[in-house]
């Protein structure tokens, strides 16, 4: 009797103590998780703030004329970003024109046409293409692809179109192998797997009832794909393409190797050019003088803002797609 009355409060306090400790541990754990989540936001904010801070000298010096002038002269300390911006946009445009149809084609092949046995190996092979680091594309493009491309494509094309008005300007002139067009081409190979992976995933969300119903009405594979499946997952496909565009805009090493690094806007697509990321990669460590460095950081800020807008649109579209899937 006395034993029990004595032991009970102590057992109780022990239990309370354990619960209190567990509660404190719980709180600590939760706070650690919260801190880690906030760290992601801090990194993001840090990137923006440091870029804005770093680009202030250049912005004060050139203002908005920075993005409208083409002059890039480290010796005279005059900097304009028009040529890199042009290069980034044009290479990405070329990449998208090639990669979007081909990427969607691969996805369709993998979901609908491919023999079941080959489906996994080909899917894996295309995904491996996505894992290859960009510097590999760069070194391969520079040593293997560019010389071949100059000899077998650029030269014949340049001679053939030399006298045709518009094409002659776009694809004429002296060829080097490296240049804006080559960079766009290499970029298209790089983003191809992203587009096909996302498209394949969203195509798999199409309910099979929809497909079966259309086949039952006598539709051909093409009609089922074009009039039923693709409209069904339109948002997802566009989102995937935007995601790939975000990658293409910011891609650095592959472009740096093959674009030629010339700070001017040439009328011919075969001529060397530069892109935002290539300019930074090439010149940053050699940039002497605060203004030069600051101009390069402002280029980085521009790149970050452009990719942010594109990627944000992509995220919102893919989110909407996912929500629709849940319904």
């Amino acid at each position, binding site marked *: 009797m006395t034993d029990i009355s004595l032991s009970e409060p102590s057992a109780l306090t022990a239990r309370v103590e354990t619960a209190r400790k567990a509660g404190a541990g719980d709180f600590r754990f939760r706070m650690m*998780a919260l801190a880690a989540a906030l760290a992601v936001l801090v990194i*993001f904010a840090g990137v923006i703030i440091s870029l804005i801070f770093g680009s202030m000298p250049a912005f004060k010096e050139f203002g908005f004329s920075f993005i409208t002038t083409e002059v890039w002269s480290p010796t005279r300390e005059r900097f304009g970003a028009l040529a890199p911006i042009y290069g980034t946009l044009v290479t990405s445009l070329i990449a998208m024109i090639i990669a979007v149809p081909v990427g969607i084609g691969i996805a369709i092949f*993998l979901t609908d046409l491919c023999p079941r046995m080959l489906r996994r190996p080909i899917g894996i092979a295309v995904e491996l293409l996505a894992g290859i680091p960009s510097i590999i594309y760069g070194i391969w493009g520079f040593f293997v692809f560019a010389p071949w491309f100059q000899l077998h494509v650029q030269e014949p094309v340049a001679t053939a179109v030399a006298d045709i008005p518009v094409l002659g300007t776009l694809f004429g002139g002296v060829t080097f192998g490296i240049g804006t067009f080559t960079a766009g081409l290499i970029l298209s190979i790089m983003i191809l797997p992203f587009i096909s992976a996302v498209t394949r995933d969203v195509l798999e969300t199409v309910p099979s009832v929809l497909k079966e119903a259309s086949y039952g009405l006598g539709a051909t594979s093409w009609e089922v794909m074009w009039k039923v499946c693709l409209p069904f997952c339109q948002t997802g496909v566009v989102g995937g393409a935007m995601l790939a565009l975000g990658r293409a805009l910011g891609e650095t*090493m592959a472009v740096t190797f093959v674009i030629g690094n010339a700070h001017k806007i040439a009328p011919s697509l075969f001529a060397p050019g530069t892109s935002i990321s290539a300019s930074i990669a090439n010149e940053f460590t050699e940039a002497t003088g605060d203004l030069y460095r600051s101009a390069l950081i402002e280029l980085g800020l521009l790149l970050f803002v452009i990719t942010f807008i594109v990627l944000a649109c992509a995220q919102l579209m893919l989110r909407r797609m996912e929500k629709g899937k849940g319904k």
Partner: protein
Amino acid sequence: MDAVASRTSQMLYLRRRIANTVFIVLSTCAAVFGLVWLTFILGGLLIDGVSALSPTLFTEITPPPGSKGGLANAIGGSILMSVIAVLIGTPIGLFAGTYLAEYARHGRLAFVVRFVNDILLSAPSIVIGLFVYELVVVRMGHFSGWAGAAALAIIVIPVVVRTTENMLLLVPNGLREAASALGAPQNFVIKLVTWKAARAGIITGILLAVARISGETAPLLFTALGNSGWSWDANAMNQPMASLPAVIYTFATGPYEDQHALAWAGALLITATVLVLSILARMLENKKRT
């Protein structure tokens, strides 16, 4: 009248058949196109890379122009910086992913973190390099291995956050409820039940992150810079540090044949590492599914 109708319907049928055949041929061509590039790239890499492989790659340091040498310092630097980056990035990514999946699945903060994380996941890595340059290199006054590791860690975090969250969301709620019903506090539930259930997936994410950073070049160019020699002492991380991708870049763009060969050998090493890691990750993922 009937004859005309049947002729037009036949024409229509023919047109639909032709459109369908064209469509099938074009999609097949697209797949072949993708595979041809993969073969070209891997083939070119094997031809030029294998001929440059030699045991001295792993024992000798990067040579000055015109002489032979290896890549030992670059390989060592890459491994060291990647290990440190993973050691820093993984816990942060793991906890942030846990926060998103376990604590605030539908909260407003979780929405923002998820959104920002997905942006960071695809943000140009060269911008991360500029950020670390401003943050670390300018403060320290010189390029360093620490700066390189920091840049790589920032690239690791979003990858780990994304896979951790996805994998934790796959853990059935019944497991959590059963553990809670036994009286386990939430941190025990997470540590002993959900993390364990999602272990294979989380490790897959870390492997993918390692694969991603092992080829990253742009953020290292102006953080770790490069170093043509060894400095394996306690102070090594405070000095500029060689890395495989940066060496490939400098050697490949230079004019010397010997250095080109080394660049190819390095490229082959990186690709092999990345492919092995991706295949390992895939195997782990499949094991989990069955």
